[in-house]
């Protein structure tokens, strides 16, 4: 399980096999067919749907109305910006929290390694909705967490920086970002763990031997060598976080609506399919663009 959820960034080419050239294609066919029919085709449908006009009662017809993209962006750019902001913040937080834990599991946990790993993974099997609802309980006004935060003036601080609107913790930017961080943390930890696990402890010793202080050792050796894990982890955290709306719905307020929520409502309540499709498409394009720029800059081009 530890190896799971990991984008390995090594890119060793497999050995050449010249005989029986049809074998790889036969292996690929069913899976790729599935992906083409149920992933690529829907994307095409989605694109075409976004260019239709009409309403539910009278049906939709294709008009090639590109203007919808402009309208969608004009109306919902704050939700886009907010989504990326929240997802970005949550990703950074997850990295900050996940790194020490991943490092601990990989290098320090010794015989407790497997136990801790399982503890990281096991919550996956408790529905994340249940766990998010539990956060609602934990952060609710009459629980000690909020009371203590109020006593320690943490709520005031949060309010001052605009993360909460009043002296509660729940239903705020703070709660949404915390929830996103929480929910996607395992997706950060697992790839980090795999790359830190591969880190040869002798390299750390070598750095110490060559006069690098612990902090320098981290910056010059540990961090650069764990970059593949960092890249994979940040992607696996950022992408789903940017499209998520459960956290915003359960832990947020009207000021924290994320774009996923808009898409969901447009599709499932308002039934404005073209607008919803256009929003989906914009989200996809923005994410894919950001990801490819990021991956290129991080220098781990062959991601898989």
């Amino acid at each position, binding site marked *: 399980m530890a190896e799971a959820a990991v*984008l390995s960034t090594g890119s060793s080419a497999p050995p050449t096999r010249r005989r029986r050239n049809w074998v790889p294609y036969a292996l690929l066919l069913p899976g790729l067919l599935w992906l083409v029919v149920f992933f690529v085709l829907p994307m095409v449908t989605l694109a075409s749907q976004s260019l239709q006009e009409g309403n539910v009662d009278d049906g939709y017809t294709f008009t090639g109305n590109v203007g919808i993209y402009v309208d969608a962006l004009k109306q919902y750019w704050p939700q886009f910006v907010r989504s990326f902001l929240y997802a970005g913040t949550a990703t950074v937080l997850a990295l900050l929290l996940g790194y020490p834990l991943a490092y601990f599991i990989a290098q320090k946990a010794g015989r407790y390694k497997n136990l801790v790993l399982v503890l990281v993974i096991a919550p996956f099997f408790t529905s994340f909705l249940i766990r998010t609802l539990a956060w609602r309980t934990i952060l609710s006004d009459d629980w000690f967490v909020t009371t203590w935060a109020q006593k320690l003036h943490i709520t005031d601080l949060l309010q001052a920086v605009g993360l909460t609107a009043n002296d509660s913790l729940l239903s705020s930017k703070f709660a949404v970002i915390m929830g996103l961080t929480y929910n996607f943390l395992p997706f950060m930890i697992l790839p980090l763990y795999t790359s830190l696990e591969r880190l040869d402890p002798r390299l750390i010793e070598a750095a110490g031997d060559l006069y690098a202080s612990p902090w320098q050792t981290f910056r010059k050796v540990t961090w650069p060598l764990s970059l593949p894990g960092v890249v994979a982890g940040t992607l696996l955290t950022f992408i789903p976080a940017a499209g998520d709306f459960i956290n915003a719905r359960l832990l947020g307020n009207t000021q924290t609506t994320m774009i996923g929520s808009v898409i969901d409502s447009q599709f499932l309540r308002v039934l404005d399919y073209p607008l919803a499709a256009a929003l989906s498409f914009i989200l996809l394009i923005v994410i894919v663009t950001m990801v490819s720029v990021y991956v290129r800059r991080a220098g781990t081009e062959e991601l898989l």
Partner: protein
Amino acid sequence: MAWIKRHLISFAAIAVLVYMLVPNVVVAAFSFNDPKGKYNYNFNEFSAAAWTNPCGAQGICESLGLSLQIGVIASLTATVLGTMIAFALGRYRFRGRSATNLLIFMPMATPEVVMGSSLLTLFLMLGVPSGRTAILIAHIMFCVSFVVVAVKARVATLDPKLEEAAADLGANPTQTFLRVTLPLAAPGIAAGALLAFSLSFDDYIITNFNASPSSITFPMYVWGASARGVPVQVYVIGTVMFVLTLVVVMTGQLISSRRNRQVA
């Protein structure tokens, strides 16, 4: 003081672990609650009532059953499809490799809302009814990529010399695959399958787009229940799933490590 400084990372790690597990503790605690009124948010009185009657809430066990069923079918199918792709990618050089890699990566880079909604759009156009089949199709689709990644990581570390050794010792290609390649890739395949199951079991967003009134999965049940007050049984099931995972994985590891130690 120096001791604390030396173990700073361990303390930070444990703190993070606590943060990750707090909700599970709360869930476990509240599974023993006898709530006052229909909302289970304040600990009122200890009661094991929900534990003795986990199916007590209307429809909860049906939805759990459906989720487990979908999870098993989807993860098995995705594991088969994904493993095949992983072998192709890890073992062969062929035209269209990078295109394949991209196609595998894309579902992971696509937000769930987009996937769910686009699939719904397709199904609307094709007239595929929402429901169990649609959910299965969707789950298999988004699980395949994760299986590929997990299995490929394992296949990449397989020493091709081992397969040569098998051939050298008189195993024909089928025997080589069954006796050597497959068992060696098994941990990766198992990890992929487990991951696929957990993703499928836990999915709400994509499922919600493709579910019909008669196919309420467990996450959808929880979502629905959250509007009207979550029954204690939900907490019971959440706790059971958590503990079960712990127990299953840990005993699995214990058994394999004991087996190794015995012969040692």
